[in-house]
């Protein structure tokens, strides 16, 4: 029972991060019908920027809380600029090209970013500095620490905020209108390019926060961390129904739980034949299963309705 509860907690924490990243995939897909495979690397850049800034500021004697807030702000600003540039350079010139073309540039951008990060930050793992004395809490035999609590709460607040922006503001209305029909939106005076840029920037800001959360939770950051995380978050977006915001949140949490419970019990289920090092299998098993049995995802519309 303790193991079960522990895996639920781990799954929720990991799932919150997946959800934030999946939102970035799904917002861009909803508006452009494009899968931004470079999004995982934006998460990595966010983590690296935040970590560098944090380490430097702690070295200068900046108080930990202030240093953390400044680093988050810097990482978000940096990632927003990066997201804007990616769209401007790699996608906008191909807006009317066949769909395969921007998919290829996306992979190209992803490789470029990984290699740039490797040149800047090196191949080694960077450890996340200890900012505060964090304590662990025991609930029914399972352990959750302050960082994990903060991750889940922050993720929920951010997602709620995003829903308000998308469903209650002029900007959000313009985003949904562009998603449905760019031509008509333009006739209503919506500047489509601007809305697309803002969408990329919003997604990238979320990615920066997610990057910081991952590295704070595991205590590590690495130039390659965005690749697998990006693929899993993409899986989460597909699971929930790509293009659907609520779907991305649901898909993220579910994928976190599936992965965590699967990893926790795979040893028992296979009589010790497979161990917890098979953790990454679950996400991609889910991806295949969704694509075979319910390609539109849990909350997705039928494809016919979109086309």
């Amino acid at each position: 029972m303790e193991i079960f509860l522990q895996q639920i907690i781990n799954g929720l924490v990991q799932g919150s991060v997946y959800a934030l990243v999946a939102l970035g995939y799904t917002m861009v897909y909803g508006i452009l019908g494009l899968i931004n495979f470079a999004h995982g690397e934006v998460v990595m850049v966010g983590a690296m920027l935040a970590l560098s800034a944090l380490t430097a500021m702690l070295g200068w004697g900046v108080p930990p809380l202030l240093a953390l807030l400044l680093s988050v702000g810097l990482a978000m600003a940096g990632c927003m600029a990066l997201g804007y540039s990616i769209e401007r350079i790699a996608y906008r010139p191909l807006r009317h090209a066949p769909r395969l073309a921007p998919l290829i540039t996306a992979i190209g951008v992803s490789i470029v970013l990984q290699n740039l990060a490797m040149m800047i930050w090196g191949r080694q793992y960077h450890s996340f500095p200890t900012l505060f004395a964090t304590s662990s809490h025991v609930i029914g035999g399972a352990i959750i620490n302050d960082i994990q609590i903060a991750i889940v709460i922050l993720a929920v607040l951010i997602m709620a905020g995003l829903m308000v922006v998308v469903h209650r503001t002029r900007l959000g209305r313009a985003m949904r209108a562009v998603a449905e029909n760019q031509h008509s939106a333009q006739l209503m005076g919506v500047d489509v390019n601007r809305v697309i840029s803002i969408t990329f920037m919003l997604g990238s800001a979320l990615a920066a926060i997610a990057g910081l959360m991952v590295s704070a939770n595991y205590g590590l950051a690495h130039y390659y961390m965005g690749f697998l995380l990006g693929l899993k978050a993409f899986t989460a977006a597909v699971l929930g129904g790509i293009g659907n915001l609520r779907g991305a949140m649901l898909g993220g949490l579910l994928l976190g739980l599936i992965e965590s419970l699967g990893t926790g019990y795979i040893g028992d289920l296979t009589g010790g034949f497979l161990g917890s090092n098979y953790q990454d299998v679950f996400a991609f098993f889910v991806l295949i299963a969704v694509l075979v049995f319910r390609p539109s995802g849990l909350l997705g519309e039928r494809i016919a309705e979109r086309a």
Partner: protein
Amino acid sequence: MNNTAPLLQLSSIGKQFGGLTALSDVSLHIQRGEIYGLIGPNGAGKTTLFNVITGLYQPSSGKFQFDGNSYQACKPHILAQAGIARTFQNIRLFANLTALENVMIGRHLRTQAGVFGALFRNQENRNEEQASRERAHELLRYVGIDKPADTLAKHLPYGEQRRLEIARALATEPLLLALDEPAAGMNATETESLKILLQNIRSTGITVLLIEHDVKLIMGLCDRVAVLNYGKKIAEDVPEKVRNDAEVIAAYLGGSDEH
């Protein structure tokens, strides 16, 4: 602004698609406050001309003047800003937005709030949003949509979807409202109430341009009518004269020049 000058003035507009000439040498002017009809057989170039007027197509040649300004190679959102709003022959609403939101999108052009306004929701922004919402409710009532304002556009009955498109166009505060076959698919009762709505709209000072297959509606509603055939304007006058024009009758009944 000189109010006797035409609102829209087209001079020798031509439009080619590759080797196909869709419009050649079309000149016309629309006066402020009139209801101007555009008719013609299928394929006469009505919709092409309409798309030129609303900026979806760039004319290959000719001059385009609206509200005293010349426009060349114009984007739809610039012309929307200048005061041209349109509806489509095949309805193009935002199907998954509510009726109210569809109209509020029309207000987009005339409202300001940027990214930071949207994120931080300051007082000015909230007031603007509130005013926009109230205006959208008024417009829904004005065009006669009975369903609740939070009904998704795709769930409205056909006639109301057409009205919603008109409400959305009106929300942009146009000087010229351009309607592409607004009565298409409507029954006689719906067409009659559409006619009353268009007369009401004109009485508020908005100029109306109408493409229509329903000749009876055009004749009963328009101050002046232009007839297109094979991309050329073959007549332009008050409805009674157009109705009796020999060339127009020939175009509609299969002209004598084809025998």
